[in-house]
């Protein structure tokens, strides 16, 4: 990067940069604290709703007795309750079949109140969930969303049927205002301090100030989250007699959280200060440059980076959106005997898949380019046009066509074998090798034209005099290729190979559509395995964790190859 202009950033730039760096750390900290408080609050609310259901569980299913049971409930324990209900034997059973039943409902004060018509199906749905929960896991309560923040929770009654409550969810209050105010104060102080300090002291000041601001902000957030949880736990006490052990609350917003945010804020403020200050400085000087890149950057950040980070966040949650730390990654990286695929096997297949494909693409593409680059070759325009056809055909169509080619009964692949006198092969059947070969053949057909065109372009840019000179020096054909062509092809071929490797590594369509991972997911590569976790296993956290691992592998690969070849490096300048 060129030095950020001649004159150094001014205090205003530094202070703005400090604010940005702080926001980068404090905003996620706020979301995490808010999320933690919300999760604990939600779990508590569900527990209280089920406890209320237990309190009215044994009431006889008549409006009057249900009313008196409901009236005894401490109303402040679950503020949002609109109805207490008993559903006598019936509702949906565990096979989703409607059973004969009667619904009795009343208000939380014990006065009779019919459940609104729209809620009745939700109550029955919750009842169905209670029953399947009891038969599956032995728990006696379950909840269903009724839309618009309304939830229905019910517990099984000993005499059959389900009792429970309908309530509107409440939100915990994490007073983030104080954290925001603390951060703002830090920026104002920074503005004053930077104005006085010499330029050299800035980064130290920023690091110390950022750490201090991070500590204050994270302390405030941690306390806010904890007090929200304490409030919920206090409400639980009111229902302690209603049955069921009190739930434990263990918010992750503790000293570790405060320490992490403090360190991160200090590091961000210290490390990001200069580049961001330089950005603000340049921005004031040449706004049109930033205006030119703004649309592309905004679009990319909103529709590529934001979804990516949302995906990262998903990787740490289970399907009920509980924070599970690294459990999803552990499931992948330490495969137990019970899971049906092994990450390391899939990784091995992926590496083999990628290297074989890229090798074949480059070998075939380069060979064809060498032949086609001869000016004397007749009809080379026709050859070239025909040879790039596979590139032009949409790859999912190619994949489906090749799936047909490898069809056991009417696929041309077997017809060709028959011509040679060999028996039919069940290509996409139970053998790993034939499935893999089918995938490989498809992708080779698909991918070589790109390498051919890149090689052709690179060959054309090699000045002819070099060959003439080499020839004069008595270099043979092979020597010319080895010492003239190959070295000069490198700069064009390396970026293409890196790009081709990334594409092949993530070549979802071919593997998914040709072999479909068969047999037994053995030919799956990492990306199709991630998709399987998403579509088949419906474990979104696991799918996201898989994808994140793929990303890290590719990022590491690119970083290493860049360092080794410096190929992409030159493009920066």
């Amino acid at each position, binding site marked *: 990067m060129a030095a950020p202009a001649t004159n150094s950033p001014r205090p205003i730039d530094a202070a703005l940069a400090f604010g940005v760096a702080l926001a980068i750390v404090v905003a996620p900290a706020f979301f995490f604290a808010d999320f933690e408080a919300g999760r604990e609050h939600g779990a508590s609310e569900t527990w209280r709703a089920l406890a209320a259901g237990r309190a009215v569980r044994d009431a006889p299913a008549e409006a009057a007795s249900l009313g008196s049971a409901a009236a005894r409930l401490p109303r402040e324990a679950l503020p949002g309750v609109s109805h207490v209900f008993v559903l006598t034997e019936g509702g949906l059973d565990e096979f989703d079949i409607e059973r004969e039943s009667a619904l009795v409902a009343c208000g939380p004060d014990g006065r009779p109140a019919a459940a609104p018509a729209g809620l009745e199906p939700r109550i029955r749905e919750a009842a169905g969930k209670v029953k399947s929960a009891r038969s599956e896991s032995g728990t006696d309560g379950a909840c269903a969303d009724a839309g618009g923040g309304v939830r229905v929770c019910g517990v099984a009654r000993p005499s059959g049927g389900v009792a429970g409550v309908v309530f509107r969810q409440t939100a915990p209050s994490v007073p983030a205002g104080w954290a925001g105010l603390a951060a703002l104060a830090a920026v104002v102080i920074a503005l004053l301090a930077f104005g006085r300090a010499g330029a050299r002291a800035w980064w130290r000041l920023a690091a110390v100030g950022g750490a201090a601001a991070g500590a204050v902000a994270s302390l405030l957030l941690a306390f806010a989250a904890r007090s929200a949880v304490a409030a919920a736990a206090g409400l639980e006490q009111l229902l302690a007699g209603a049955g069921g052990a009190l739930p434990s609350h263990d918010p992750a917003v503790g000293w570790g959280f405060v320490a992490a945010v403090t360190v991160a804020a200090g590091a961000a403020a210290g490390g990001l200060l200069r580049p961001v200050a330089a950005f603000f400085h340049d921005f004031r000087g040449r706004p049109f440059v930033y205006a030119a890149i703004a649309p*592309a950057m905004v679009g990319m950040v909103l529709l590529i980076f934001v979804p990516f980070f949302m995906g990262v966040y998903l990787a740490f949650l289970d399907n009920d959106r509980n924070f599970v730390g690294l459990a999803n990654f552990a499931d992948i990286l330490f495969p137990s005997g019970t899971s049906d695929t092994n990450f390391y096997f899939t990784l091995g297949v992926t590496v083999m898949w990628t290297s074989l494909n890229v090798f074949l693409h480059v070998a075939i593409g380069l060979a064809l380019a060498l032949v086609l680059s001869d000016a004397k070759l007749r009809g080379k325009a026709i050859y070239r046009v025909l040879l*790039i056809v596979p590139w032009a055909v949409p790859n999912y169509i190619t994949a489906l066509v090749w799936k047909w080619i490898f069809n056991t009964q009417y696929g041309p692949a077997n017809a060709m074998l028959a011509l040679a006198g060999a028996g039919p092969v069940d290509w996409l059947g139970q053998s790993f090798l034939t499935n893999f070969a089918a995938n490989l053949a498809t992708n080779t057909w698909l991918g070589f034209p790109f390498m051919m065109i890149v090689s052709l372009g690179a060959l054309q840019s090699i000045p002819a005099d070099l060959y003439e000179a080499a*020839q004069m020096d008595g270099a043979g054909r092979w020597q010319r290729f080895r010492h003239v062509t190959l070295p000069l092809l490198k700069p064009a071929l390396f970026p293409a190979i890196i*790009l081709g490797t990334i594409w092949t590594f993530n070549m979802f369509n071919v593997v998914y559509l040709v072999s479909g991972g068969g047999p037994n997911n053995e030919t799956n590569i990492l990306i199709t395995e991630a998709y399987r976790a998403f579509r088949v296993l419906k474990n979104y956290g696991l799918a996201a964790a898989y994808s994140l691992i793929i990303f890290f592998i590719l990022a590491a690969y690119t970083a290493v190859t860049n360092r080794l070849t410096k190929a992409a490096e030159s493009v920066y300048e």
Partner: protein
Amino acid sequence: MPADAPAPKTRGAPPKAAATEAGPVGSHATPGLRVLRHVALVAVTAGTILPVLWVVKMALGEAQSFQGAELSPIPPDPSLANFEAVVGATLADGTWLFGRQLLNSVLVSVLTTVFGIAVACTAAYAFSRFRFAGRRSGLFMFLVSQMFPGVMMMIPLYVIMEKLHLLDTMVGLILVYSTTSIPFSVWMLKGYFDTIPRDLEEAAVMDGASPARTFWTVVLPLSLPAIAITALFSFMTAWNEFVLAYTFLSKESAFTLPVIIRNYVGEHSVQWGLFAAASLIVSAPVVALFFALQRYLVGGLTAGGVKS
């Protein structure tokens, strides 16, 4: 390649001049070798083209299945029934469904290309010509974004599209497609702009032209080959994309053409004839564009990589 373009820094001369007699392999090939070369080329080309011919045969054959494994690419009993079935698809109320879907595809692809190229061109020019804070990180972000696995983005993208009420709309698809194609476009165009000598622009700047005007009158006309190729890739991204369209679109009248192909390849029964006909219809425009622009492919693609 523009004939009047001053020779860029190190980009190759036009194709014909470069591949001279003393080419890497060619030079004084004996007649025997020459024949051998053609035999090999014909074999490879036939292997490349045969699957396409089989698809044509399949499309001209029977609708339901394709029985009997024959290698001959000539259809025994050609008929256009499959094409008629695909093109003639209508909704219950008599709307011409295929026409609607074709229009969707064309609009989405063309607007994606126009929007994506406009945005990518300006960004690439700034990245190529100016040194500013954040330039390197910006370029790096474009590169990194290529490595994000699509599976991971699917759920969040769906949520975002839902929040913005862009599901089942063309605008949603256009926005997503153009942003996915922008990083690649920016890198390619930047590589090409880098090879255009600055002296020309400096002359324009001396005459008092603004950066925008310099770009429009000097750089853009010289970059048409690269822009054509980048546009081709943007168009292909949008025209061929299937997974996101399949996820975001639920109304049949909002489908793009690739989605309808999915309908012919069911879980249990595959209507190979209709699939083949639809595939040919979907592929035809892209292949035609590809052929029209293929002479630019060689220069456009490698410009960034081969400069010294």
